[in-house]
């Protein structure tokens, strides 16, 4: 017994010694469930690939919770080296000079042969400053696509191989689906803010705000109340009243997926990263994929869709050794195999051209219909000022305002124009406050 404990004590000390020699960095993330397990696997593989550095992932809850936790930790001087922040937090993180270490700078100082040109411009464009420098490391990026129920399409007398290309077609198909009794509702959607407002704008090459959608500086303002957006919201309201469209709730629209899975709605617009979940829940019918619909009479549509998801930000106040560890980890993340292994099962976009090519070579896209839709849609055209992405401070709250005003419109308290005018007025008030806080 005594010998046993002596041995284990020695083993313990030895292992502590081994751990000491390594540089350990913390990585706070917001990936729960399946995605969380995949993410931990990525970190584990990195740790196994070398013995100088160790990355320790820890799950901190939802995206807003993780960001909040990191900010609170920073204020208390307990910040992790790496934190995963969702795309709408970009404005806040970018403005926090002194709290973050821009990725291009980190890689210049501590990384080996870092080449920013290997990334897909549509993905990194969202996260670069006006000089084209990468500020954070894209990790999981997705874009909304259209899923549809081929079985219901067939029952309604529609061509099951032909998803709606335009909103006009979508309206007419939804009507036929409802009138034929094939399903009680035409379509539903996740994320009114991200999909039906921001992506809608980019997809139709309409500005979301001034100053290149906020990329140009803190004095940019929202302009979401344009003609195209008002027309689309107005249509959604009318379609909701007719039952063609079913609202899934605020933020991510929690009630949208069950409506599609239960075959109540035949068409569903959701993130490409929802792919694995959608496939798992739709075994009862044939699933089809398509690009987002567009109004063919709006000039410039379809342009290209924009991304969502999250990137990894590096926080300041760490030692050089720790930054070397982060740089080595980021270097590892950009390797084609690592990227492809992460992107294929999750439905996220590969962030480098090499990873995309590798997946194509492996036959992933050929064997998995619909998986390529997202990347085709995001690279459909060279991004314009209106379709690069968006960057505003306090945007988490502005997303909330978009949901609220949409709900007010649905309840009949406001028309589309008044609701979107209010989004702009209330949103710009928050953006003004943000500008004042950060100047």
């Amino acid at each position, binding site marked *: 017994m005594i010998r046993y404990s002596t041995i284990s004590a020695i083993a313990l000390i030895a292992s502590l010694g081994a751990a000491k020699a390594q540089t350990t960095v913390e990585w706070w993330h917001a990936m729960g469930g399946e995605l969380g397990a995949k993410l931990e696997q990525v970190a584990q593989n990195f740790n196994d690939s070398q013995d100088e550095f160790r990355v320790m992932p820890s799950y901190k809850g939802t995206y*807003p919770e993780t960001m*909040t936790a990191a*900010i609170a930790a*920073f*204020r208390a001087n307990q910040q992790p080296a790496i934190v995963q922040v969702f795309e709408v937090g970009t404005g*806040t993180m970018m*403005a*926090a*000079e*002194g*709290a973050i270490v821009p990725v291009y700078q980190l890689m210049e100082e501590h990384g080996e042969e870092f080449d920013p040109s290997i990334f897909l411009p549509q993905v990194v464009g969202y996260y670069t400053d006006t000089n084209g420098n990468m500020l954070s490391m894209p990790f999981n990026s997705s874009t909304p696509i259209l899923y549809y129920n081929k079985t219901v399409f067939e029952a309604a007398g529609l061509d099951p191989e032909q998803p709606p290309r335009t909103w006009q077609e979508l309206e007419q198909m939804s009507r036929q689906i409802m009138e034929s009794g094939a399903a009680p509702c035409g379509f539903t959607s996740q994320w009114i803010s991200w999909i039906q407002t921001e992506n809608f704008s980019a997809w139709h090459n309409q500005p979301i705000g001034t100053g290149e959608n906020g990329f140009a500086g803190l004095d940019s303002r929202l302009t979401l109340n344009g003609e195209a957006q008002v027309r689309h919201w107005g249509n959604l309201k009318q379609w909701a009243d007719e039952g063609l469209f079913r*609202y*899934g*709730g*605020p*933020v991510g629209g929690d*009630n949208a997926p*069950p*409506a599609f899975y*239960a075959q109540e709605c035949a068409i569903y617009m959701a993130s490409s990263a929802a792919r694995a979940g959608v496939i798992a829940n739709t075994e009862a019918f044939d699933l089809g994929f398509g690009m987002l619909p567009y109004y063919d009479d709006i000039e410039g549509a379809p342009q290209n869709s924009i991304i969502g998801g999250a990137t990894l930000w590096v926080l300041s106040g760490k030692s050089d050794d720790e930054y070397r560890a982060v740089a080595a980890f980021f270097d590892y993340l950009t390797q084609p195999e690592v990227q492809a292994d992460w992107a294929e099962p999750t439905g996220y976009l590969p962030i480098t051209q090499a990873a995309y090519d590798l997946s194509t070579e492996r036959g992933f896209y050929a064997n998995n219909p619909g998986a390529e839709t997202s990347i085709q849609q995001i690279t459909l055209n060279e991004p314009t000022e209106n379709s690069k992405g968006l960057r505003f401070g*306090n945007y*988490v*709250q502005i997303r*909330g305002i978009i*949901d*609220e*005003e949409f*709900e*007010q419109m*649905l*309840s009949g*308290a406001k028309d589309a124009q008044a609701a979107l005018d209010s989004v702009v007025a209330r949103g710009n008030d*928050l953006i003004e*406050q943000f500008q*004042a*806080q*950060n*100047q």
Partner: protein
Amino acid sequence: MKRTIFNSQLLPWLLLAPQLAITFVFFLWPAAQAIRQSFLRQDAFGIRTTFVGFENFQRLLNSPEYLNSLQVTAVFAVSVTLLSMGFALLLAVAVDRMIRSSRIYTTALVWPYAVAPAVAGILWWFIFNPTVGIMPYMLGQLGYNWNHISNPGDAMTLVVIASAWKQISYNFLFFLAGLQAIPNSLREAAAIDGAGPVRRFFDITFPLLSPTTFFLLVVNIVYAMFDTFAVIDTTTRGGPAQATNILVYKVYFDGFVGQNMGSSAAQSVFLMLIVTVLTVIQFRFIEKKVAY
């Protein structure tokens, strides 16, 4: 009452020290921080700080969302209080009349109090879920289309029910104790004088219960205003269109989700004032005027 005399000054302070330390660390220090923060404008990471005087307060008072939140809180607090106290009184009167099984009923009725607010929220969220819940299905049979995701009235009903349900147990216990403290002779005398059960309740029982009722009134309003965060967070998250965004939830949302520390702190200061007023009411008017 017997007065304890201490020989030295040190011992009483020493005995008080742990409680004072806790009060200082967990109540006074954060409260002071909130007051300080409410006069500042700061970015999320706390790098740039500017003193802005009363600007945060001014903004709040001019903000339609904040005024809406005040109104929502008032409606919510009054509804929760009336519903939970009404039901509790009804149940307490029923149990009070029982002779044999009152103990079992008391235990059963106190049970929900042990349920954490977040769990209670999830429970009611399931029951009322428009897609999978049993209540929307039953209401649908009656011709009512329940949808708390887009209908503000439904959402408010949901959070009121979920919050009141939990509080019924607490109120029930106090009402039952209050009822049992009322001498039976008074009710019997009234009965002999020919007063029916309803008359007896309103003329004898209810007035004699008034200390309990006043106490519970304050406790329930405080509960509805400050302890229902978890219920809101697990059911409606303040939606739709801020229809259930009570003051406490707004403090959380603006501060922790929105990272607007100045405004959040100013809202906390307003909340502190409300608590102070409620506490004063309780001590001044209730504890003193109403004898038990």
